[in-house]
């Protein structure tokens, strides 16, 4: 008998002896129903979600929605056309290779082979998943379990903590801290990790650290030396690194995106996550990928083959073709990867200016399409809204109601211990068309007129 079965028999017998199961069916029918239809322990407490609370707002057309992170600008036309063409081919409407459609994984290996400056095996070192989200899930399920600790840097994309918990492990949080005392001209580069604090979070149970660069929500791009410090700790403590780089192409002038997997000693212990949705402004296509060494990727592939098996074919074909087209243009202004960043830089600067003129203090991001802003200077009194929620949650709800402008509270991205540090910040998304930004600007200009 497989040892796993033996273990399960032992543990279930142990549980049986411990629990007070009712043998008489009829009298316990109601209780049995509530026991049996209860959820599995792995999802206990993971049902709440900030998006569920705030995305219904998006349906109201009178609200200017700078909340959830998706573009309201169209994707490039060649990407949409690629999909229309793919859907016309019979074969491309049926199952493709489970770990990634050949056209797509080969295109990824070409593009990232150049970026990493290394040969990437399209079949063994790349896995295509349902969005960057699906890559994170496959990574956690494959490599993280009960007894493990996973270090997460605050503020973090909110799914990291529940995914770590669902895998049975313990999240260990460490906040980025604002090192500047200025009240204007703050950038995401002013938010840094305390090196001693970071080192103190690593121990023998640490299985992995999750980094997100460019970071959502702050927009910080971790510099080479910051990544080296993290890499040194990973190597010293023999931990893995999960690097969420979905915004990798949205890098603004004067900054460089560095892949931690390219630092010495890191390729063998790093999974890097990317996203077609963020790359081509098609979040609704839900395609992403994990890149890493075979000895790690094969475990993600095992999760994939036992969870959803394969991703949609025509979408993968279209993304593959889009990548190949832009691969040829890499380094040139026509390349969508850099053209989009250029377009967004203007929007970033516009948004920072409109926020600043109300008296708020924006944190200008080095990358990504979010900006957080400190609302302290507005001195908005929200005591009438009670005190069972952090300030930013109340502020956003008040702002939606009174100003018809939606954002996301930043404490949704931090643990309880860091709420006080972040509760004066809200997050805005600026990958929006000019008319949306015009509407936001109108609201902000009139802010102080009540």
């Amino acid at each position, binding site marked *: 008998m*497989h*040892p*796993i079965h033996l*273990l*399960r*028999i032992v543990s279930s017998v142990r549980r*049986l002896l411990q629990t007070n199961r009712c043998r008489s*069916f009829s009298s316990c*029918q109601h209780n*049995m129903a509530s026991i*049996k*239809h209860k*959820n*599995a322990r792995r*999802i206990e407490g*993971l*049902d709440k*979600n900030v*998006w*569920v609370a705030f*995305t219904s707002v998006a349906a109201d057309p009178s609200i200017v929605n700078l909340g959830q992170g*998706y573009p*309201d600008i*169209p*994707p490039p036309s060649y990407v*949409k056309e690629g*999909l229309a063409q793919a*859907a016309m081919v*019979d074969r491309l*409407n*049926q*199952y*493709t290779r489970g770990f990634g459609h050949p056209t797509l994984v080969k295109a990824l290996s070409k593009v990232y082979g150049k970026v990493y400056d290394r040969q990437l095996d399209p079949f063994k070192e790349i896995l295509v998943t349902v*969005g960057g*989200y699906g890559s994170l*899930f496959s990574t956690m*399920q*494959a490599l993280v*379990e009960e007894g493990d600790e996973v270090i997460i840097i605050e503020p973090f994309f909110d*799914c990291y903590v*529940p*995914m770590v918990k669902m*895998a049975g492990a313990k999240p260990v949080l460490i906040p980025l801290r604002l090192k500047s005392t200025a009240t204007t001209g703050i950038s995401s580069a002013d938010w840094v990790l305390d090196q001693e604090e970071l080192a103190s979070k690593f121990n023998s149970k640490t299985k992995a650290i999750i980094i997100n660069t460019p970071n959502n929500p702050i927009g910080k791009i971790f510099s080479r030396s910051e990544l080296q410090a993290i890499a040194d700790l990973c190597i010293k403590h*023999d931990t893995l690194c999960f690097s969420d780089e979905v915004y990798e192409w949205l890098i603004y002038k004067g900054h460089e995106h560095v892949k931690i997997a390219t630092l010495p000693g890191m390729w*063998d*212990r790093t999974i890097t996550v990317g996203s077609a949705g963020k790359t081509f402004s*098609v*979040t*609704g*296509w*839900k395609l992403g990928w994990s890149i890493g060494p075979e*000895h790690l990727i094969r*475990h993600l592939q095992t999760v994939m*083959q*036992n*969870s*959803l098996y394969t*991703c*949609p074919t*025509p979408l993968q074909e279209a993304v593959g073709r889009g990548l190949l087209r832009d691969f040829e243009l890499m380094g040139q202004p026509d390349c969508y990867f850099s053209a989009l960043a250029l377009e967004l830089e203007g929007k970033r600067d516009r948004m920072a200016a409109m926020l600043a003129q109300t008296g708020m203090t924006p944190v200008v991001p080095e990358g990504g399409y979010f900006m957080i802003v400190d609302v302290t200077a507005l001195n908005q009194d929200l005591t009438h809204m009670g005190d069972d929620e952090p300030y930013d949650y109340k502020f956003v709800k008040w702002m939606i109601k009174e100003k018809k402008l939606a954002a996301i509270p930043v404490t949704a991205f931090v643990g309880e211990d860091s709420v006080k540090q972040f509760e004066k910040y809200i997050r805005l998304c600026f990958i929006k068309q000019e008319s949306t930004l015009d509407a936001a600007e109108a609201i902000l200009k009139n802010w102080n007129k009540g």
Partner: protein
Amino acid sequence: MWRRVAVYGPSLSVRLAIAGFHEKGIMSRRLHARRLEGIDKNIWVEFTQLAADYKAVNLGQGFPDFSPPSFIQEAFCNALTGGFRMHQYTRAFGHPNLVKILAKFFSRIVGREIDPMEDILVSVGAYQALFCTFQALVDEGDEVIIVEPFFDCYQPMVMMAGGMPVYVPLKPREGRGPALTSADWVLSPEELASKFTSRTKAIVINTPNNPLGKVYQWEELQVIADLCIKHDVICISDEVYEWLTYDGAKHVKIASLPGMWERTVTIGSAGKTFSATGWKVGWAIGSGHIMKHLKTVHQNSVYHCATAAQEAISVGFQREYDVFGTEDSYFHQLPITLHEKRKRLADCLKSVGLKPILPQGGYFMIADISNINVDLNDPTTKEEPYDYRFVKWLIKEKGLATIPVSAFYSPEHRDQFQKYIRFCFVKEDSTLQAAENILKQWSENK
């Protein structure tokens, strides 16, 4: 490391230590999570590669090699040009247009008001709906009854959720002569009843069944329902082939039986419904108090499904709702087309000495190969079950791809079912012709 030795015993720890040393010198402890133990092998990965390598006529994996109906392709193209929202995130638990039409459509069939927002979860194919169901409801130590032969993913999914699979076989009905159709394969009610214990969390049924093609009748489902109610067990009903029934067999939804709605998760597939398996859109339908747990798994695993495909499927379902029961309905036409292909393949298999079991429903037909004597002289497959070896020989020597049926049996019972192979007949006539030519030629040369 030593804590794990104490818990799991020496043999497992030796394996762990060896695994540690093999991994590139990093992480002296094991890299992968325990939940992956024993579930890394996969028949599709192996056999689809083989079929491709040998450019075999592919009656193996279950997908059509003809196009989806034109109305669904048009719907997809319209969705793509339908404004920016079609390319951005939609509602996580299911695109509103899709869940609304699914609720409307299936309410009519199940005979109760299905709430589109509470009772339905859209997933990345029926496969992911199954995954969400097991992850949401199965805990370590729970038993899950699986009816054999079963679609192969049920077993590893139960294991990954920490559950213990308990198997009960469909068997040829005794004393009625040769079992020539899938209707002749039945469960023994006594044997089935004996599998239910106080640890049983769920039972998985698949109707129409893959690979056998059995369509469970009302009375058979009633036996299962009675046991579910008696033991307060959840029923997971995989009904992806629900529209494909032949010879007047009627598909019955176990969720429509008394007492079953509140304890059943019914799984469906747009890929199988509209012959577009590559779109990977599926759903789970059930009472909200169970569905909310599947939603929790979904929001912590993939969160959203692709928008445009969901929009296209909603248009397809609206069209089918309007023409339901008429000759125009794709759900009416497809089974008629497949009925012919099924008969054609069965006749061909019989003519060359294979013994097909005529399926009442679904995409597949299994055939008994015990009468065939071939010299399977391939040293690379020596340790494998007979049907695996036979299928590989058939791919390599004859250029015809099928799937070995023992892959759909539990490790415990695999040995007893090594003489069947599975054919998919949802193929163009030219593909079936090519397969026929291969089989006839082989038969003539024997």
